[in-house]
């Protein structure tokens, strides 16, 4: 990709970052959600530990589980739901403008998503850190945090690309919410969003290996848990593989979509 082309797509990232800074309420809403969910789950894990239940199955220190949850939620909440934007653009017909520009629609949408991610991730990351620290009065080793941050950002970017693929289905379905709900539930379970994968039955853990979900949430977050599901090198490899697969998948969906596109409203 030439510098001129990079500059074109970077412009999409910049303008969407600017728009995200204007839409502060949504960011504040996500931060508030973060505080609530970490508050609830830290109380839950404390209760589990006090009841003598085997928290040690997943972590030597029950406080690490709160940090695990903070990490998974940070990754997930930082990824902008661009499938909704795409769905609305398809429904309103505004997509005709984007399709008519001399840029790749898919790359432009992804670049816009990265712009939003660049605004959300630092704010939500800071919220995650402060909330997790406030609820546990403890921090994981600095090295673990330093590993989680870049991998978490990369995972959020990959989730954004997956949302893009879901959004493109709007060219056929108009409403992609059902697809998103299925995806979200798979993320909850196979990604280990709320509970570390080690707490699930063996067959779920085995099935999860064949999906991108553990690489998106459980694996990056496992560094704060101390269980290290994979090494950083292996995780990087998996993220690259799933990114390539997602890129192929999304471009295939897009090619099919534009060949069959009908624009709403004539």
């Amino acid at each position, binding site marked *: 990709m030439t510098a001129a082309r990079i500059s074109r797509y970077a412009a*999409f990232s910049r*303008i969407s970052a600017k728009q995200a800074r204007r839409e502060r309420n949504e960011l504040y809403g996500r931060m508030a959600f973060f505080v609530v969910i970490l508050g609830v789950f830290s109380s839950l894990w404390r209760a589990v530990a006090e009841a003598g239940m085997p928290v040690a199955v997943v972590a030597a220190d029950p406080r690490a589980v709160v940090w695990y949850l903070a990490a998974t939620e940070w990754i997930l909440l930082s990824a902008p739901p661009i499938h909704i934007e795409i769905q609305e653009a398809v429904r309103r017909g*505004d997509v*005709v403008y984007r399709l*008519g520009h001399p*840029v790749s629609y898919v790359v432009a949408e992804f670049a816009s998503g990265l712009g939003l991610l660049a605004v959300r991730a630092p704010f939500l990351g800071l919220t995650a850190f402060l909330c997790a620290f406030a609820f546990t009065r403890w921090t994981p080793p600095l090295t673990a945090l330093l590993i989680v941050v870049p991998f978490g950002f990369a995972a959020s970017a990959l989730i954004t690309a997956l949302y893009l693929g879901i959004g493109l289905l709007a060219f056929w379905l108009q409403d992609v919410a059902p697809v998103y709900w299925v995806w979200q539930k798979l993320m909850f379970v196979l990604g280990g969003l709320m509970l570390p994968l080690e707490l699930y039955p063996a067959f779920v853990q085995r099935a999860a290996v064949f999906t991108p979900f553990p690489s998106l949430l459980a694996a990056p977050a496992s560094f704060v848990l101390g269980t290290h599901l994979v090494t950083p090198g292996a995780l990087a490899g998996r993220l690259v593989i799933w990114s390539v697969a997602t890129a192929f998948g999304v471009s295939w969906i897009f090619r099919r979509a534009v060949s069959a596109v009908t*624009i709403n409203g004539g």
Partner: protein
Amino acid sequence: MPPAAAVELNQLSKSFRVRRVRSTGVGARVRDLFSRETHTVSAVDRLSFSIAPGERVAFIGPNGAGKSTTLKMLAGILQPDGGDVHVLGLVPSRQRRQLAFQIGTVFGQRSQLWYQLPPRDTFELLGRVYEIDPQEHRRRIETLSSVFALGSLVATPVRHLSLGERMRCEIVASLIHSPRMLFLDEPTIGLDVSAKAMIRELLWTESERERVTLLLTSHDTGDMERVCTRAIVINHGRLLWDGPIAALRRSYLKGKRVTLWSDAEHLELSLPGVRVLSSGSYRTELEIAIEITPLGQVVDAAQRQAAIRDMAIEDTPLDDVIRALYAAADIRSGPS
């Protein structure tokens, strides 16, 4: 050597598969889940015409005639099923990106402006997208802002703009890369009278100033009359009429609309080719087929009943002309 056509369509066709809903009932609905019945709808049917550079053409047709589908094929957004199309010497479906640098599009009910941000931000983005030199881009924004009287609007968030203001900004956004051709799909839809007049004036001025070729679809005959010199009329995806707007009037204008103010409260005029549209309160509105009964005969007949105080003679509105054109085409094509 005559200039190459800006737009050249030859037997252009496009159809869509549309789902046919089976009869109501649970059984039919369940069958629908497993095997859907579809039928083909022909949106554009062997359409041919060409447009010279710098022309301002109204592209007219009733709802569902295939106007927007044609525009989207011309812009390279939709792929034709058959026929040839060239825009500025390029094949839109195959050379969409090259073409995008040379055309602009305005879709009246759509927006390309970023809603939370001022239009200036979208203009800057488009400058990057179209790879415009930053200095030239700044000059272009200044020029267009001045022509379109944007003033402080460029710095106002789009969500705070009125529809008319937003539409001016949308058109500037579409002109920012100095396109040679502008496709406009209902650019004045939903606007009030003064905003419409302003948009029409600006489009005409800009087209004259930069010799931009315009292809405009609209249901508003005012758009066509004030901006365009030529009309292409389609219905059911087929060409109905193509020629100067003045000729369209002449071809289908077999009558005059006459309003008489007289001393009599009602006028009773039963002459061949004369239709009384309304009569009462000393005012009578007539539609006269002047080929059947000359205007003078009608006025004489009216004067025999009462003194005529005033009279207004108008051409039949273009709306009526176009309606007559569609009706004639429907009669020719028969029930479908």
